[in-house]
């Protein structure tokens, strides 16, 4: 019965939505890349860069939104690198992605050590504060969960709407999806497949970095090593789970986050105290694997995902 009590409590859903927020940003970012035909395994490292860049900007005395902007730009930089290597040069997306993750992570840790050589416990910043939306936040359970969050969380939800609209209702979205399904057709229309794909990877990587920045600027309020902790890989699983659709991926992220919030709470019950805590920490990863297996039969993979396009080659 305890689990039921948890599930109807407002604090549980507030936590779930908060946990979901960085995943929503990064999942949308990965989704944009993959819909254009590029698997971006740089996601894990790009989230690390974003987390550091955003935090460092605010720590240096600039505003919170400037931090978000700097995080986004730093992500776009690594996106440009990833896109250049994988799209016009057609290098293995697996190898380049993992290389970008290693490069971004090690550059971040290097910069952190340079910037703060002496600290043992990382300094905190004045992070984003919850911003209750008048009237709506008064609704029981839903009010605190959905309408008493930080501005970045609201932005995450708006982002899903924007990504859906752009993907399915605009010429840009059509061209992007076509680049991931049938690049030759895009080329025949006189559009540049390389341009579209590089652009998509840059925008997607920028969003991944904002997802990382959420961790330092709206959740933990400071930067520490290994804080991304596999979230990027989980987002790749969420894209598959969401069948490459923004709305389904959003649902997946919230479900996943709810489960994560639940396992934290069960750990604190008498039942959970008898189980090694590692079992609970394993759950998110096992759940992601399970989701991949369940969804694999129905997945509609973009036809040209991981297929390099070399103009003039038939």
């Amino acid at each position, binding site marked *: 019965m305890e689990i039921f009590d948890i599930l109807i409590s407002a604090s549980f859903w507030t936590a779930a939505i908060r946990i979901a927020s960085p995943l929503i940003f990064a999942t949308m970012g990965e989704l944009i890349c993959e819909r254009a035909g590029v698997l971006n395994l740089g996601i894990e490292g790009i989230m690390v860069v974003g987390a550091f860049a955003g935090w460092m900007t605010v720590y240096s005395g600039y505003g919170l939104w400037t931090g978000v902007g700097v995080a986004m730009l730093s992500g776009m930089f690594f996106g440009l690198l990833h896109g250049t290597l994988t799209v016009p040069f057609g290098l293995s997306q697996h190898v380049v992605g993992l*290389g*970008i993750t290693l*490069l971004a992570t090690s550059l971040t840790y290097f910069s952190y*050590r*340079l910037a703060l050589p002496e600290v043992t416990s990382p300094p905190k910043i004045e992070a984003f504060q919850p911003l209750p939306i008048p009237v709506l936040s008064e609704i029981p359970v839903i009010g605190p969960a959905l309408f008493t969050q930080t501005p970045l969380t609201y932005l995450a939800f708006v982002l899903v709407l924007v990504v859906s609209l752009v993907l399915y209702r605009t010429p840009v979205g059509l061209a992007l999806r076509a680049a991931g399904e049938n690049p030759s057709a895009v080329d025949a229309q006189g559009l540049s497949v390389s341009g579209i794909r590089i652009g998509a990877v840059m925008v997607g990587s920028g969003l991944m970095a904002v997802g990382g920045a959420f961790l330092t600027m709206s959740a933990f309020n400071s930067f520490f090593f290994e804080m991304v902790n596999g979230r990027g890989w989980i987002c790749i699983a969420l894209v*598959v789970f969401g069948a490459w659709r923004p709305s389904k991926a959003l649902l997946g992220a919230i479900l996943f986050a709810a489960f994560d919030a639940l396992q934290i709470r069960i750990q604190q019950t008498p039942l959970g105290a008898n189980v090694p805590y590692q079992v609970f920490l394993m759950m998110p990863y096992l759940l992601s694997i399970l989701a991949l297996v369940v969804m*694999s039969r129905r997945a509609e993979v973009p036809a040209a995902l991981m297929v390099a396009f070399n103009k003039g080659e038939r």
Partner: protein
Amino acid sequence: MRLEPIANPTVTRTLSLPLLALTVTVFVASFLAMLAGANPFSVLGLIIDGAVGSKFAALETLNRATPLIFTGLAVAVAFRARLWNIGAEAQLYAGAVITVLLGTGALAWPSGLLLPTIAICAMFAGALVLLLPAYLKTRFGVDEVVTTLLFNFVVLLLVSMLLEGVLKDPMGMGWPKSARLIPEARLPRIVEGLRLHWGFGLAIVSAAVVWMIQTRTTLGYEMRAVGLNQKAAQFAGIPVNAVLIKTALLSGGLAALAGFSEVAGLKGNLTLDLSPGFGYTGIIVAMLAFLNPIGVVVSALFVAGIFVGADSMSRAAGVPTYIADIMLAMALLLMVLAIMLTRFRIVRE
């Protein structure tokens, strides 16, 4: 722009581009070291000196190369068949756990019997860890990149649980570490008095065996065929799924030997920091070796040299140690680009 294959690349092109990639890597590393307050012109010298400048340094490099040869081979075998095993880290720990389970007194056998038994059991454990993602790939079409990556986290948590539970050393003063192996379960040193164990010998032998499998057996031929073109292989009557499963077993087994060799050869017990990412670094080793098993030995020595050398350089010059990872990531990205440009030329539209 588009890419056009070069029919006969010149020797100059084949050699100069990879060399340029390495030069740029060193240049960037020197620049970063300068930002950290070191003399940029001393960086390369300090790295080389730290990697091979003394007998101690060279042995350290060989020791560091040992697990990298195993994980590099594991990745090379898998990638050749286009099985994207990013989970060598998990398979390494599986091998390490078996080594501790069997080597801390459970089997009181003489060394000559005990060590091969442990090695084989460790390989089975590693193979088993990769079998599940490989099965999910062949049976349900689940992408193995994500599953193997996620399993790394699961297995590491499992090891942490074991080290705080059944494997915990009762004499460990509360630290999450295993008991020490019995002397019969330790890999002896190659030369008495020098800190280099037979794990290195086993790594060299493994590379030779993998080379034999790839070039002299039907399985090796089938693995290559599946990697080159899965549909064509299927059409030619090669049982693609069976080949992928066999590849997974071999790859997982090789990665597990890294765990066996680190525990039985170097450390003598198991802790959570047994591997500073040897599984992931294996990918770099394999790629720099063009997935060639003999090349893996060379590139593992190179990568280990960068690690050991950069470590020593960063201590001497006060540069953050992460510079080694930056250099490896740069070398990897620039090298795959350089290799591609030796075979293709860029044509402007």
